[in-house]
C-alpha cells in the first residue's frame, strides 16, 4: 500500500515539477566574470553548479547610454530576460567592481570636486610672458619673477546629479 501511495505522490510531484519547470529562469544567479570580451559581453561562471558557464552574455546596466568595463573576477548577477532561456543578461554587480563607466560612448575622464586643475604648456607660456612684462615694469608687486605653479587649485563645484 505504501508503495502505491509513494507512486501516486511521485506522479503528482512529477506533474508539479513539470509545471514549475520555467521558474528557475526567473531567478537571479551570482556569477564570476571570467573575462570581458572586446565587444563588451562577458564570459561567466555561475556559483550554482546547476547553471552552466556562459559565453557572450550582454550587460544591461540599467542606465541609458552607460557602458561598463570590468576586470576578471568581478562579481555580477545573471538573469534571463522574460524568463527566457535564450536571453541571458547581466543586470547587477557587487559594489566596487567597475573599472570604467562611460556614458554615450565617451572616452574623456570626468573631473570631481577636489580634483586638482593641472597647469599645462599654454599656462607656462603665459607665465613666461608675464615674467617678461614684470622685468620691463619693475618691481610692481614685489616680485620680478613668477614661477609656473604645478596646479591651479582644485575644482570647487560640480553637478549635484552625477557623482563619482
Amino acid at each position: 500500500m505504501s508503495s502505491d501511495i509513494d507512486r501516486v505522490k511521485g506522479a503528482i510531484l512529477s506533474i508539479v515539477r513539470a509545471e514549475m519547470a520555467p521558474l528557475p529562469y526567473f531567478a537571479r544567479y551570482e556569477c564570476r566574470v571570467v573575462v570581458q570580451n572586446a565587444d563588451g559581453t562577458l564570459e561567466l561562471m555561475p556559483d550554482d553548479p546547476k547553471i552552466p558557464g556562459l559565453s557572450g552574455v550582454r550587460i544591461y546596466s540599467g542606465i541609458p547610454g552607460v557602458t561598463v568595463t570590468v576586470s576578471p573576477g568581478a562579481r555580477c548577477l545573471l538573469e534571463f530576460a522574460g524568463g527566457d532561456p535564450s536571453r541571458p543578461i547581466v543586470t547587477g554587480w557587487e559594489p566596487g567592481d567597475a573599472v570604467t563607466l562611460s556614458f554615450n560612448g565617451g572616452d574623456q575622464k570626468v573631473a570631481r570636486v577636489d580634483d586638482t586643475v593641472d597647469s599645462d604648456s599654454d599656462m607656462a607660456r603665459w607665465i613666461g610672458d608675464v615674467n617678461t612684462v614684470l622685468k620691463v615694469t619693475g618691481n610692481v608687486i614685489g616680485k620680478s619673477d613668477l614661477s609656473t605653479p604645478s596646479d591651479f587649485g582644485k575644482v570647487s563645484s560640480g553637478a549635484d546629479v552625477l557623482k563619482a
Partner: protein
Amino acid sequence: MSVFLNDRSVSALSLTLPRIGVWHADVSLLPDDEVPAGKVTLESFGVKYQGTVLRSDRTETMPFARIVGGAGGFGTEIPAKSYRGTDVELPISEVLSAVGESLSPASDSAPLRLRLPFWVRMQVRAGQALAALLAVARVPAWRVLADGTVWLGTETWPQSKLTDFHVLAQDPHLGRHEIYAVEPSVFPGETWNGMHVSVVEHRFTQDRLVTNVWVES
C-alpha cells in the same frame, strides 16, 4: 490474440499509447518466466514496440513489469549546458542522446532549424529540458513511437486503418470509446471514425481484449 514480450507469451497486458509523451505498458507474464529487465520488445497484435523495463518484480504467482517506450530516460537529470548560435535541433538531440533516447527521422525538420542565439539548459530532468526546447521551437506534439524513437512535429491526422470493430461502450462526456477489434490498429494522432485520436489503451488477457480510444474532437 497475440501479445509477446521478448517472444514469450504474456498473460495480461495494459498498453497505453498517448499522443503526447511516452507510451507505457504493464505486463504480467507466465508463472515460469523470468522477471524481465533492461531493453525489451513488446509485440502487440502485429506491432513491435521497443521499450525499457522501468520496474519489475514477481508476485506470488507470476512476474510483472512496467515498460516504457524508448530508453525510459526522460526522468533522468542531465548536466547543465549552454549553447550559442545553433539550430534548436542540436540541444534537442543532445538532451535525447544524454539519456539514451534518439530522434525519429520522421520528425518535422522545419521547426528544428530555428536559430537560437543563446540557449541555457540548467541541470534538470531530460523531460523538462525537452519541454522547454519544444516550447521555444513551437513544436506542438511529441511522442515515443513504437520503434522507440522520439517523434516531434505537427499532427497531420492521417486516416486510421481500423474499420472493423465493435463498440462496447461509449462515454461521450469523456470522449472515450470502448471497442473490440481482432486487430485494433488505431493509434494516437490518427483520425478514427471522424474523430482525432488522443490516447489508445489496449487491455488484454488470455480470454479478453478491449481497446479504449480517447478522442479530442
